[in-house]
């Protein structure tokens, strides 16, 4: 069976000779599954997100061993642009993910890069805004939105590329309770759409939506049996 995302003996160290941050990780994400990865600060969660999304080794340096496969193809054989067509990643800080002065332009940026015809882009802008609960925000300036709205906009910008795999790297880290609830609701609806989701977080309450939880600690992964065990660990 070909999995949407699979890591085979994945390892990573920042430079040659330094102790590895990730060691021989093996896991796969099934189609439509929500996999949560938790771990204490500094355990390598963001680095793992970078490896899963091909940012490592394609954009950032360091020494990556083993392999990450997207739909059976190694990320080493893909380009970031090719990866963007099947995988979307939302980062922690919305401030550095938004760079235009109008919401619609922000969402259109990805599809324009992928040469999507303009009339489809128009449709995707409305659909993405609807999905993240920001209808009527088309003409607004992203920099005048609240933190939660900015993060939802960053998510809308990724959704406009219509990726089948989504990675959320501590997307609620900068948000208040209301913003966190809204993002959680959106993730639930994306799960219902059948998208494959990997969410990385250190807040156990954020992971209720997950089908499976893995704990990243000391560079290795292990299964977490249930939510109670997770709360006890963290």
């Amino acid at each position: 069976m070909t999995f949407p995302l699979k890591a085979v003996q994945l390892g990573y160290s920042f430079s040659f000779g330094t102790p590895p941050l990730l060691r021989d990780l093996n896991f796969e994400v099934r189609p439509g599954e929500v996999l949560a990865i938790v771990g204490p600060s500094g355990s390598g969660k963001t680095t793992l997100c970078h490896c899963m999304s091909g940012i490592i080794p394609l954009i950032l340096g360091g020494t990556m061993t083993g392999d990450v496969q997207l739909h059976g193809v190694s990320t080493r054989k893909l380009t970031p642009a090719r990866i963007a067509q099947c995988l979307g990643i939302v980062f922690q800080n919305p401030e550095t993910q938004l760079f235009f002065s109008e919401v619609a332009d922000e969402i259109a940026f990805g599809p324009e890069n992928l040469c999507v015809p303009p009339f489809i882009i128009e449709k995707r802008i409305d659909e993405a805004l609807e999905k993240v609960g920001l209808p009527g925000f088309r003409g607004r300036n992203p920099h005048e939105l609240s933190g939660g709205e900015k993060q939802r906009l960053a998510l809308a910008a990724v959704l406009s590329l219509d990726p089948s795999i989504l990675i959320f790297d501590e997307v609620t880290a900068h948000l208040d309770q209301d913003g966190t609830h809204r993002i959680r609701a959106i993730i639930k609806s994306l799960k219902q759409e059948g998208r494959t989701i990997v969410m990385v977080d250190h807040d156990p309450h954020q992971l209720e939506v997950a089908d499976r939880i893995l704990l990243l600690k000391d560079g290795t992964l292990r299964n977490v049996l249930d939510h109670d065990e997770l709360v006890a660990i963290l």
Partner: protein
Amino acid sequence: MILTERFTGLDPRTKLVLVMVLSSLGVILQEVLLLGIVWFLTLSLAALFGVGWRPILRRSRMLFGIFAAMAIIQSVFTTGGHGFLWLGPVSVISSLGLERAGGVVLRLLIVVVSASIMATSSPREIVQGLSQWRIPYELAFMVAVAIRFLPLLRQEALETLTALQLRGVALEQLPWGRRLRVYSYLLMPMIAGVMSKSKELALAVEMRGFRAYSQRTAYRVLRPRPFDYAVGGGMLVGMGLFLWIVY
């Protein structure tokens, strides 16, 4: 009001032509009187584009110091004109010094005020305009990102400065030498912050398919209207006529 709307709604490329004409005149012309005429024209155009007086005044204010410094330097190091203020045998303020300082400041004012006309278009429109002028999208996009991130950098510098002051560094009470040394301490966290933000931005851009293909589509295409041609063409012809009459 309607006229302002028509002008602000101009194609960014037309505005760019306008800014280039005004800035070129500011560089080409040498006489203070002619530079004054161009500055007046620039101010009038800025008013037509609905540029507020306050930002213009705020930007112009910092040029007064340059004017004073230039006036003294030009008066001391050039001969000619009438001396108004003497320090022994040296003329500190002369008519020639004032004239040359006035010329320099007027040139700067023309560039600063005319550039504010560009701010009436959104960065996205400017990028689109430049792309349709066949300027590589990567280059145009970088310009837009720079415009977007400059205020963020300023904010970061202010935050670092506040953090320093909260640690008990009373900047106002420090002599200039030590104050400069404190400012140098700002550089490291600022550069680190900028590097980190640039990295995050680059990742977000790459992961949204930037440079996926040699071409890209645009859901919003700029189409110049007859008014754009009239304004742009009028400015170019006007510049030609003005220079022909003057020289």
